[in-house]
């Protein structure tokens, strides 16, 4: 255990060092650089900016910058980026494109979607998953293909399974087919042809992805009950490793792989294990102490910190975010944000 901690510390130190080298001399690219954007899903979606030193907290920056003429739409689900542009996906079938550092409005894309969820970028195009009618088992979910030059939806790819999380790895697009603990596969799309090239079966529903050193990791779990971490070989799209996680954990979600460790949340706890660990004891890295099932509504690990959000249990009041040190689990900050904070995005 001590050796592990030591290892972690050294990893963290190395990470800090490398990051500060990159960032030291860069001038801020806008008011919302050098901080984290927290996406709050709504009513009408908002974005909260929190500076890295926690000294600046600004609610609803889209409104602050752009006024009333535009809004981000209802139920903002996620954000993806293409260079300086941020694409904010709203469940009311639209994507609002803004400058990620200034949050100045650029464009709205509002046709070609049906309950859009998540997006990623590959081969000069953006790929956005759509839940469509939310039917189950899903038959009508699809991926919209957006031309990043014209910002028009130029094609759709039917997944014939739930289309939820989406990520680009090794030049391919991976779509998780899990939805609220159901579904058990991952769809692979070739962005040069926009055709499905493989389907990877999983034991449980994949609910979150991350990439480390060109390897794709997916956390798979039911709505409640046990889960596992799988590693996918992105050369041949086969499972290269399956890590069974403690059966005593329930509702596993929010995978984040960072510096040789993987993190996730379950029942208000944050778990952290080394990727090369061989034994997994059910010991929380951080026990938040919250019994709210919405603790962990959003989650990310970045730059030595763990960010976790807690949507209000009644979903009719502002949520909170908590920031922990990822080496020792100390609480560094907590801040009230907007309604239903569901994701963290780092500038």
């Amino acid at each position: 255990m001590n050796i592990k901690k030591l290892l972690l510390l050294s990893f963290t130190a190395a990470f800090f060092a490398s990051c500060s080298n990159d960032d030291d001399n860069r001038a801020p690219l806008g008011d919302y650089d050098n901080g984290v954007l927290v996406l709050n899903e709504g009513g009408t979606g908002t974005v909260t900016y929190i500076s890295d030193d926690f000294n600046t907290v600004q609610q609803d920056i889209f409104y602050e910058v752009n006024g009333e003429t535009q809004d981000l739409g209802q139920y903002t689900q996620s954000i993806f980026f293409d260079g300086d542009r941020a694409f904010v996906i709203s469940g009311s079938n639209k994507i609002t494109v803004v400058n990620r550092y200034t949050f100045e409005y650029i464009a709205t894309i509002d046709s070609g979607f049906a309950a859009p969820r998540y997006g990623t970028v590959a081969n000069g195009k953006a790929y956005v998953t759509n839940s469509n009618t939310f039917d189950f088992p899903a038959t009508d979910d699809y991926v919209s293909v957006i031309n990043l030059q014209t910002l028009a939806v130029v094609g759709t790819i039917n997944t014939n399974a739930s289309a939820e999380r989406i990520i680009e790895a090794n030049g391919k697009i991976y779509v998780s087919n899990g939805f609220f603990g159901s579904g058990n596969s991952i769809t692979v799309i070739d962005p040069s042809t926009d055709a499905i090239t493989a389907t990877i079966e999983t034991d449980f529903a994949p609910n979150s992805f991350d990439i480390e050193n060109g390897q794709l990791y997916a956390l798979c779990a039911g709505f409640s009950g046990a889960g596992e971490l799988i590693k996918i070989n992105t050369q041949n799209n086969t499972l290269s490793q399956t890590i069974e996680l403690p059966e005593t954990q329930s509702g596993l979600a929010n995978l984040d792989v960072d510096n040789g460790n993987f993190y996730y949340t379950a029942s208000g706890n944050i778990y952290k294990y080394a990727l090369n660990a061989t034994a997994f004891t059910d010991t929380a890295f951080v026990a938040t102490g919250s019994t709210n099932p919405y603790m962990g509504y959003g989650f990310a690990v970045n730059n030595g910190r763990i960010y976790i959000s807690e949507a209000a249990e009644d979903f009719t009041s502002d949520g909170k975010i908590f920031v922990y040190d990822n080496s020792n689990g100390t609480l560094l900050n907590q801040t009230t944000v907007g309604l239903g904070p569901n994701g963290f995005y780092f500038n």
Partner: protein
Amino acid sequence: MYSEKWILPALLLLCLVGRAQQDTVFLRQVDISDVSLKRYGSTQKAISISDSVYTSNRTSLGGLIQFNSPVYIRENGIGGVSSASFRGTTAQQTAVIWNGININSQFNGQFDFNSYYTSDAGQITVRPGGGSVLFGSSAIGGSIHLNTTLDFYRHLDNRVSLSYGSFDTGRFAYNINASDGKFSVNASVSHNRSENDYPFPDSDRNNLNGAFFNTGISAAAGYRINHKNIIRLYSQYSSGERHFSLISPSETPTKYQDRNSRNLLEWIYGNENFNSRARVAYLEEQYRYFETLNDENPSFGLAKTVIGKYDAALKIRSNMFVNALVEYASIRGSGTDVRQTNRNIGSGTLVFRHIPGKFLYELGIRQELSDDYSSPVLFSAGGKYQITSNYSLRFNGSRNYRIPSFNDLYWADGGNPDLKPESSYQAEIGQDFQWKNLSAGLTVFYMDISDMIQWLPGTTAAWRPVNVNEVESFGLEFSGKHSFESGSHKLVSAVLYSYTNSQNAETEKQLIYVPKHKATAALDYTYDRFGVGLQGLFTGSVPTRSDNNPRYDLDGYFVGNGLVSYRFGKQKSIVVEAQVRNVFDQEYQTMINRPYPGRHYTFSLTLML
């Protein structure tokens, strides 16, 4: 349409019931079926809104209640889902009573005021305060009574009404009201439709996907067998389709269809000392929700309710009455989202009323038995003291409840069969003042609601209802009314003000969508053939977030409506009317992101034959 035949009974029997009339009303075979409303009206104040000029061509039932009562109506814009908050309570805590029968939805426990289409409600009465002993589940904040009148004097009245207005809104209604002394009929057919694509004030947007149409048929018939026996039948059928308007223009358009049928048969036997009513009701409630406009498999719900009621009232002495009531209801619910279930509810109620002199008091107790939840013993105790001929004091204390709805108990993904009913204790003190044509009332109330059902995120399903919240409310209601008549001039003015402090006992925050301040004012003036009506509504700011974050409060507003009418013809039987709603073009919302239209118009032509 200002027919005194409609106005007089309402005026006589409701607001201004003097003590002298009370004993006779108790056993009289009153002209409506909701007999409890009249027998036990005196220790709590009831507001009749049947006598406004606006009732004749009302644009919506919710709007009528919003502008004439302390009830706060929350509406997703014109035609959208519309529900009530009464004395700071939730939509499930207002009971809507049709001819004595509770018609709140079996599925969600609330009443959607924009799904009540028929135009026959001869009397609309709003009764603030607990009334579960008399009116059953949901009568926590108060109850709203829709009653069809059946008159047995010889008459034949036909009425045809056509109206058209802004946003391509049209309405047709035909009513017949007739009696030969033995047989009485009150029937109506109405059809409404609207494109409802109004522009939002202070915005470049329009209400999108808001169109609706609906048809309502209603027929009531009574037969007076002899001076001791009457049989009455009430039937109502309505069917409508509403597109649900969009918050964001890019949203997927949805629509909603509903169909309701309500039937009630009653036999009344009465003599000087005894009155018995046997009633059987059959209700069908059906909805279909289309997630897309062409959804081939819309979700649906269907609830069939059979109710049997027997009510016996006995005059023990000249000033002492007792009323026993037994009721049995069997409800069968099915649908795409609820597990098919039967539920059976039986109840027994005993009410005692004594008028020793200037003081009168009423005591009531009710116990309900059900196969899927356990109910508390409900009670009510009230008194009224007529201190002087123009001043009286009243008080009432009660325990009331709201039973879990089908969705709460049997929702396929998350329904909780272990729910208890919500229950409340309530106390109120009121005073009423009457001097010549001026009347005023002031009521203060306190309410404590426990076991409030709230849907919260769960570990086995996304959402699950639990008995979690406790709410404490207090507030006051003031009402004043003045009428003036001189020659052909007639002027009626009314004001209402309510203050409502309704807090979650744990967080001490005001409940969402409960305004602290609401006031209405109305003025009706008629001079011979000419009529004018003015209405005003003030609502203070309303929290929309449970943490009361003021950033998301709905702003307070004042909205005014105006109406002018003129009667043509020898018999004054042709009425032309013009209404302007939201005269000051105020931007306002009662639900967040659901703006109402700015200034808009309705013109109507009514023929009375």
